[in-house]
């Protein structure tokens, strides 16, 4: 796809084309930076564990964990236009599923699909009835899930209110890597696979149907789309992503507790994807940085959020996509 921010007049209509990134949820692919920048990003990501000391490495790993969660949330919120306040709960369920399996001696590669499937099942169970509700109602139902899960974990999960420490994946000795480097590379691989899958899903006929439903469900239905089925599946798939991310979180931190997965996490995830930029994969990456480094909710972070949204209503990604054209010529 030829890149380029087009702001010119369209032949035949005399209509000014909105710049890429001007409004939220703009799905156009135009990435105004050269193709090799992607290669540089990949090379940089792989070399991080060999350049960065352990604690920052831990933080960068967490960023990748949240990337997976936000990719899933963006499917529902960015493309589907549905508000979910329950993704922190699905994240927590995935994290606990992985922790319980790890503490009972199951090898760590098994925990990833299991955590994903548990969250996927829960997503289906809540999504089927919930997506029949629109907008605000869905937000309230998912909010209820987010509120209900932490106390349930405290009551029922092993470790209870104390939390559950587990062993993190150990690097195979023949690689000669430290454990945290190994975990980083594992998380990177999962995040890259999740990223690639989501890109093709969003560009598929199914992904277009999801966006079409956001625009006009009645017209979409006449074209043969089943609104409830598509939205329910979108919701379940985004829960799957949240569950996978939760499992990666357990691998990274080696400790889970109900306090990590409260409604604050759900809201932070939603804020992250809005700040990063809805409907774009790079929005998930930027949002993940925000989620990881956002100071605890308070006056400063609240003001920072308001500032970002005032300056960049289409998120940081929208700002980045517009920047080159702005610097080049289009100072209108």
């Amino acid at each position, binding site marked *: 796809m030829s890149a380029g921010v087009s702001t010119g007049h369209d*032949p035949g209509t005399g209509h000014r084309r909105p710049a890429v990134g001007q409004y939220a949820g703009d799905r156009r692919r135009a990435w105004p930076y050269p193709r090799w920048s992607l290669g540089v990003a990949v090379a940089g990501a792989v070399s991080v564990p060999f350049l960065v000391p352990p604690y920052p490495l831990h933080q960068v790993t967490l960023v990748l964990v949240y990337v997976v969660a936000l990719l899933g949330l963006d499917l529902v919120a960015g493309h589907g236009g549905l508000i979910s306040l329950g993704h922190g709960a699905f994240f927590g369920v995935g994290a606990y599923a992985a922790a319980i399996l790890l503490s009972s001696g199951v090898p760590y590669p098994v925990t990833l699909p299991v955590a994903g499937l548990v969250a996927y099942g829960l997503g289906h169970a809540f999504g089927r009835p919930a997506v029949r509700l629109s907008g605000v109602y869905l937000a309230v139902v998912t909010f209820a899930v987010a509120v209900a899960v932490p106390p349930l974990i405290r009551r029922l999960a092993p470790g209870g209110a104390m939390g559950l420490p587990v062993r993190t994946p150990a690097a195979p000795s023949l690689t000669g890597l430290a454990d945290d480097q190994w975990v980083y590379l594992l998380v990177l691989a999962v995040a890259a696979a999740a990223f690639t899958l989501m890109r*093709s899903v969003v560009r598929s*006929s199914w992904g277009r149907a999801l966006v079409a439903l956001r625009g006009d469900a009645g*017209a979409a*239905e006449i074209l043969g789309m089943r609104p409830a089925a598509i939205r329910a599946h979108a919701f379940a798939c985004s829960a799957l992503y949240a569950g996978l991310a939760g499992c990666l979180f357990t691998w990274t931190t080696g400790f889970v507790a109900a306090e990590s997965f409260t409604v604050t996490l759900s809201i932070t995830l939603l804020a992250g994807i809005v700040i990063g930029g809805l409907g774009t994969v790079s929005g998930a990456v930027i949002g993940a940085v925000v989620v990881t480094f956002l100071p605890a909710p308070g006056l400063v972070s609240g003001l920072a959020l308001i500032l970002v949204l005032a300056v960049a209503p289409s998120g940081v990604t929208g700002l980045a996509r517009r920047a080159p054209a702005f610097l080049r010529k289009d100072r209108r």
Partner: protein
Amino acid sequence: MLEIGRLTVRYGGVTALDAVGLTAGPGEVVGLIGPNGAGKSTLFDCVTRRRAPDEGVIRFAGHDVLARPPHQVAGCGIARTFQHPAVFPGLSVRENVMTGAYRFAPAGFWRAAFARDGERRLRAHADRVLDLFGLLGLGDHPAAGLPYGVLKRVEIARAVAAEPTLLLLDEPAGGLGPEEAAALAGLIRDLHRATGMTVVVVEHHMEFVLGLCGRIVCLDLGHKIADGPAHVVRRDPAVIAACLGAR
């Protein structure tokens, strides 16, 4: 082909359609006229299952349309446009037209994600349709914020991409200038000639209807007041009183 019998829709105490019958043979182009509130769009809504009629039957190409859920109407080969163009603002013009062909597309989350080949075919199909409508240059443009006349064309292109055997057009020329309307009529005529689909057009623009339709049905306040060859119906005193006279 399309057979509508005794279709009745009531909104509370108001009868929007009162035992209306309508047929359209294979390859026929039927104009559906009448003043505002005559029940034209309501009839379309019944055929596309947006509204359940109180009584009546709708059969198309051997299918009992009323027995199908709304998302299976496209599968019978029925496509429609709306009075106010219902394009999807989050998608580009090309993507909008691609959603028209949704019924041919690889369905489902996993299958769609890996169907590169199907996606390429769909894109080529959409580009052919865009080219017909002179919209190829706008393919990557977001459908949000385009002028009204262009949105109308995008929506018709989307319906045509579904390769319907029955195309229902709700005021396709509404809001278009005379030249645009004439061009659109020519385009629909060409498409009809090429595909042999049945077309039902709701339109106020009489020149547009007369230039396009061999047969005209006139509704007024939910009743059918005329049904016949275009040149006969346009001279019918009841029709003139109901809609033409009002102009």
